[in-house]
């Protein structure tokens, strides 16, 4: 699995990371982050259950992050 960004940083002087790479498309990134935050902060599903599902999904998809 790859955990090293394959695209250069969009922020001068900053190393490539998921944040600095996503900054190449900042409006899209902001919209994604907003939706992601809504998933965590809204709704009736307990946050502990959400975290269990997130971790299980990461394991199934072999996500190294």
């Amino acid at each position, binding site marked *: *699995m*790859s955990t090293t960004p*394959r*695209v*250069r940083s*969009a922020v001068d002087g900053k190393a490539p990371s998921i944040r600095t*790479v*996503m900054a*190449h*498309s900042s*409006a*899209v*990134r*902001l*919209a*994604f982050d*907003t*939706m992601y935050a*809504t*998933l965590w902060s*809204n*709704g009736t599903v307990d946050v502990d259950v959400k975290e269990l599902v997130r971790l299980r999904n990461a394991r199934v*998809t*072999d996500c190294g992050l």
Partner: protein
Amino acid sequence: MSWLVADAHSRDDVLALHPALAANHQRLLDEIWDSSLDAVLLEYCRLRTATILQNQIAWDEPRSAAAITAGLDESLIAELTKWPTHPGFDAAAKACLGLAEQYVIDVHGITDEQVRELEGQIGPDGVVTLTTALAAWEITHRFDNALLSSATEGES
């Protein structure tokens, strides 16, 4: 139709159960279509991933308005499965579709060389937009498959 909401007939009807999430999901899609990446390329990839993930609903709904405005050719959409060899798909389209297929079939099979080639075609902003779009569409396709059924399921 959905087994989750008795009178639901669309994705929007089901998403209405969670209005805040629905609004932010739509905002993400709007930002993707409004991005600098060619909307025709985005629509190719949305439909190709829908086929691979067997989401007929994505094929049945209207094509992207942004893609139509950008010159989407419906005759090429009909040839989408032949993109690797069809002359109607240029190098940028092939690079995008190649990544889209790899993304949904085996994401760990994406290579450094593949991303370099893609970046050469659509730039780093395009790569970031496309990969985020692929994530958004994978969510949408799987959401449709899980919670909706199509009267014409399996025809694409």
